[in-house]
């Protein structure tokens, strides 16, 4: 089928990612917070090398470097068509520039506000990442940063789609990312323990050990989006045709009803006149945590039945670990798979379904621990 492009959705003109170096490595925890180590997925120490000039990079936080580098790759991938008053920037981040914030506050606390670090303060403010992208590419349109835990990316993407649909902008850079920081990893141990066993993630793998918890990670993804039928790249053949968020009780993984999830996914597909039978691949946000994997497993069985039992299922968090905006990396992989018309080797297949066939339609689906579930429909 070839669904009609609803006007509210967007073409993906360029994609960019910054992903961790594999395999995950031990990350030292702050001694004041108990010390020890945690296996973590970290990006290269200088992720921007060869992409962002040293003169620009020296003033930027790690999050800014991650998102700006992803944006550079997306803009380059999209043919460099981004600038001017019609170009907006929308950034989603769960925790913002955590490292710069820690540096600034540590200095203030330890030195009793005697010698603050001005540059660290500038890079720690809320809109720092979006402004760095706007300055780099001369984007003079809307400029927003959205921070809402693990749905920050989805909300930023939704804002960009709305701005495009209403004609407030012609093109958007949507970026999302989060940085790994020992303080955050240690703090999260109090509410959502990372796995104790130092074993890399293999979400939903039938052969992997069923372990409690996931592993922390970091990374960034960016998208250059255009309006369908706009003046961007007519050859851009990948579209975001559906985006949905559904609130669920946060602490009740066992209470998730598969029929509600199937209905939610069908609703995301509906505006594009698509059904679950049109999905070539469903890309899950499963992160290797046994409890969460079990829910994904139940939902996928129900979705497979609704789709006619021939669904290809993939996962990606073995590439990046778990972090608030990891779903942006999932969408970048989905977009790339549709653009190339094939399964990418990076995506780990749980079920092959129609995997030998062409990949034209990918549905991403994430169960966020804050209670929201999200899905995005990417197709030709």
């Amino acid at each position, binding site marked *: 089928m070839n669904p009609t492009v609803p006007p509210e959705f967007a073409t993906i003109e360029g994609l960019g990612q910054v992903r961790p170096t594999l395999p995950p490595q031990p990350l030292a925890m702050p001694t004041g917070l108990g010390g020890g180590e945690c296996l973590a997925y970290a990006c290269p120490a*200088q992720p921007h090398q060869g992409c962002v000039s040293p003169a620009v990079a020296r003033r930027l936080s790690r999050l800014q470097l991650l998102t700006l580098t992803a944006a550079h790759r997306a803009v380059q991938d999209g043919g460099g068509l981004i600038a001017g008053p019609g170009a907006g920037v929308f950034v989603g981040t769960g925790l913002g520039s955590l490292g710069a914030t820690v540096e600034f506050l540590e200095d203030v606390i330890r030195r009793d506000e005697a010698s603050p670090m001005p540059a660290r303060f500038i890079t720690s403010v809320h809109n720092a990442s979006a402004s760095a992208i706007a300055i780099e590419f001369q984007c003079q349109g809307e400029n927003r940063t959205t921070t809402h835990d693990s749905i920050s990316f989805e909300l930023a993407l939704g804002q960009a789609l709305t701005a495009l649909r209403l004609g407030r902008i012609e093109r958007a850079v949507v970026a999302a990312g989060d940085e790994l920081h020992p303080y955050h990893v240690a703090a999260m141990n109090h509410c959502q323990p990372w796995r104790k066993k130092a074993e890399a993630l293999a979400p939903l793998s039938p052969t992997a050990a069923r372990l409690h918890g996931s592993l922390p990670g970091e990374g960034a993804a960016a998208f250059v989006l255009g309006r369908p039928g706009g003046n961007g790249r007519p050859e851009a053949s990948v579209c975001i045709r559906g985006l949905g968020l559904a609130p669920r009780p946060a602490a009740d993984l066992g209470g998730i009803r598969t029929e509600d999830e199937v209905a939610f996914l069908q609703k995301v597909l509906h505006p594009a006149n698509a059904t679950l039978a049109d999905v070539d691949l469903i890309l899950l946000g499963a992160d290797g945590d046994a409890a969460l994997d079990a829910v994904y497993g139940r939902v996928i069985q129900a979705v497979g039945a609704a789709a006619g039992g021939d669904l290809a299922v993939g996962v990606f968090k073995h590439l990046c670990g778990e972090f608030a905006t990891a779903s942006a990396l999932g969408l970048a992989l989905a977009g790339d798979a549709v653009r190339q018309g094939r399964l990418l080797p990076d995506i780990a297949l749980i079920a092959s379904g129609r995997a030998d066939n062409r990949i034209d339609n990918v549905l991403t689906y994430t169960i966020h621990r804050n209670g929201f579930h999200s899905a995005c429909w990417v197709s030709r």
Partner: protein
Amino acid sequence: MDELVEQLKSHIIRVLRLEDVQPEKIDPEAPLFKQGLGLDSIDALELIMMLEREYGIRITSIEVGWKAFASVKALAGFIREQRDCHGEK
């Protein structure tokens, strides 16, 4: 070799994150701002803080700052002058 000048070069590179600058490439007599290293007002703030943190020296006026930050050599001279005033070695 002036040890203080070399130490200041290292501090400047570290504090201002001049990752593409080697200490030996910094001309001690070249202007720090606009020309030379091409630093700006935010860098000036960072350097003022660095002086306080590392050397316990405060810049008390704009005029003093302009003179002290004219070059790495001028900054080293300013630090020595302040130490002499306070009887430090």
